[in-house]
């Protein structure tokens, strides 16, 4: 495996965030941690970009934000996937798979 995390492709982060939120309401720090764990650190997700994505998704109505107490009793902003968010995730995931299959087909045999 090549060393160092991969840079993130444009638009991919939104899908990742939506995917992570299918597991239930989560605050930004939780999302960041989960993405880091899921990819073993292979994808370089800046916290800044993550928060921008969360607020963008909130504005688009794909997630909903609400203040609630965190696990260690802090007030944290929890994000929940909305129905529209779930639909968007399905579409984007399908797109992503087609894309990656197409690229894979071309690269096959190397």
């Amino acid at each position, binding site marked *: 495996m090549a060393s160092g995390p991969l840079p993130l492709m444009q638009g991919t982060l939104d899908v990742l965030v939506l995917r992570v939120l299918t597991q239930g309401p989560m605050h930004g*720090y939780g999302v960041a941690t989960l993405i880091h764990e899921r990819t073993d650190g292979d994808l370089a997700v800046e*916290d800044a970009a993550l*928060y921008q994505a*969360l*607020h963008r998704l909130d504005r688009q109505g794909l997630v909903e934000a609400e203040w609630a107490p965190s696990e260690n009793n*802090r007030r*944290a902003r929890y994000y929940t996937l909305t129905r529209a968010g779930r639909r968007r995730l399905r579409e984007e995931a399908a797109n992503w798979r087609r894309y990656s299959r197409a690229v894979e087909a071309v690269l096959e045999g190397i």
Partner: protein
Amino acid sequence: MSEARKPLWYLRRRPGSVASEVDEELATHLQMRVEELMGRGLRADEARREALRQFGDLEFTRRYCRTEDQRKETHVQRGLFVEELWQDLRISLRGLIRVPMLTLTILMTVGLGIGATTVIFSAVDAALLRPLPYADPGRLVRIYTDTPPFKFPFSVADYQTLEAQQTRFTQVAGYQNRSMAYSDGVSAELLRGRVVSWTYFDVLGLKPLLGRTFTSADSQPGNPLAVIVSYSFWQQRLGGRRDAAGQTIKLDGNDYVVAGVLPQTVGPLEQRQDFFAAERWGTPPRKGPFFITALGRLRSETERPLAADELRAINRRMFPLWKVSYQDDKATWSAMDLREYVAGDVGTIAGLSLAAVALVWLIACANASNLLIARVTSRRRELSVRAALGASRGRVVRYLLAESALLAAGASAIGIALAWAGIRLVRVAGAEYLPRTQEIVLGRPSLALMAVMAVGSVLLFGLIPAVHGTGGSVDESLRSATRSATGSPAVRRLRRLLVGSQFAIATPLLVVAGLLLVSLSALQRVDLGFDSRNLLTGSIRLPPAGYQQPGSVQGFWDELQRRLQAVPGVSGVAFADGRPPNEVNNFNNFDLEDFPAGPGQSQPVSPWLAVTPEFFHVMGLSLLQGRLIDERDAQRPNLEAVVVDRAWARRFFPNGSALGKRFKEGGCTTCPWTEVVGIVSEAKYVGLDKPDEGTVYAPWSGSFSRFLVVRTTAPPASVLPAVQRTIRELDASAPLSSVATIDELVARSLQTPRSLSALIGGFAVVALTLSMIGIYGVMAYYVQQHSKDIGIRLALGAARSDVLRHVVGQGMTLVASGTVVGLLTAIVATRLMASLLFGVGAIDPATFAGVFVLVLVVALLACAGPAARATAVQPATVLRNE
């Protein structure tokens, strides 16, 4: 949790909260990251640096997130607003349906106010405000002889001088009304026509639909007579054929060439005219008579003063030339806006009607406001709960305004429907009272007014209750609402003020209606001076072409007189050139031998009737002195003998008999003396509302057109067919037109005052009814809220009559003060309508007192119900309920 189910006000964020929430979120994140790093063994300051490094561009992210959140917030707010508005409207609608009486009262009364005001405004707009529908109407004027207070038409001599000498007008024109008999070869009918100068259509800028307008050749003797016909004449009598221009038609027995056909839409001057014949006025032998309405088109609107100077100068120049037949050197020439002339004197009537309907609207709004305040007050608890749950004051105001807006929208819809129907009605029925009714439309000014009234309604009856619905602290309202509150003092004061204003508005309306009714009844009681029953009249016009032989005209009238006398049911037949109560066609001036008019003095003028000797007997006028006119008087070439009425004799000879007195008539200085040979009782010829200022009866000798007056022994309607048959047998081309009994003519002359008093009276009744509803509502509420006090009073030994007196006194104080304000207003206002009154002063004490008593009695009735309920209060029940 879906957004729609949340109480709406929960979602509201305070301004600035977006920024602080983003800050808090990012701070929390960094804090968590620092803790994580310290958990891995970093020092606090190292962990902090590392967390910031990992985060990336913090400042940009902060700005980015804030912007995103703000955009979302705006979007949500907007959505909420629409949703809330929709919800408010739905709830309001349901609420209003639950109180149908209240809703209907408000809808109908405010709707009536809006609709009626719009109709009358549209009529006033068409009659008085809008420019005339002619080309460049600002330059059109009417030119007249000015001898205040009269504006006299021109004579042929005047008109021809004006035409020859004026330089300030691009063109001048003149017209005279003249009915002519149109004959299609089988039967004849008398049609409304006009004799016009050839310039008439050019001055007004009217283009014919077919054919051409007149040219100067049409007025030259020797050329064929020319006529331009109206669209309806063309349709009905010429079959609407395209080749109608150039055809020849018979008018008064003469051949006229149809030069052109007018389009369907014409100006107010051409309305209801059947044809326009080019004049053949010829060269006048003397200055009078005066029958031409002169019009002019100014070269430019700014030349008006110059034109006025020129008119005065021309008149001064021509005065010496006609000195023999015209001596009034105080008369000058003047010009007025043609629009003003067309509008006539309807200004007062129009203004009065408009004011009346606008006041009804205002009173309807005050009433609605009052009813809605009561509604809000009784719902105070519900509103307080809403406020306690977090609804902002603005939110509650909006909720209450939604209700008013719904009501105003409904009322406006009703108003539009009423206006639509009303305008159609006025266009048909209003022509009797107003000029230019054909031009009434629901146009932009009317719609603008309606929109203003709709919005005004919302503000008038919406804002006050809404503001009061939210007044006071929530806490206080909640606590007081659980007990039987008496409503806040401010609300009570406001309601009393509203009811007081209702009476203050209704009272002047009632006074005006009362004065109009008193006038009407005075008019109806006017003594015509004769027995008006069984008097049949009509107009006959001989076609001049058929009566060119000397003596043939007189022969026709003599023969007609003889034959009509023989008709069963006819007891007397006479001819005259005028008829009661308001159709006198001639006013003449005269110079008395005993009191000659000095230089610079105008000669006296009287209504002047030419009558046959039988006239006095047929009408039933009694001879007081001297003798009546006889056949011999009529045969003399000069006017040597006249009969005058008592008023004339009193006016000029108050201290002696007028019998045998002499004068020169019509400005003629060379004619022989005319002598007063008899004095008869008065009769009305210039209108019921005019005082008897003296009438002169001259002997009548044959002329082409006269009124027929027939006294019948049977009902006139049953005799009429035989009369008409007799005339037709004698000459089928001389039809009897404008047939009416004198009673019908009297009724017709009362139509305008009658309709006006019905209109204003109707609105006054509506206003009074609304005021009654207002005072009833306030008193019923008062009793309901004070039942505890009343119960305690009764328990402490107050007599029920004391309670009654107290409650009634409360209401009547309010009514009386409103009414007094109204009466004071009326004293100022009725002066403006003095010109409409007859036989009663503008400040008639009896009418004012009558209205005061009427209002108090009706208000007493309205207060009686609530007062009775107050006395029926059972102290034990009330106190137990506490």
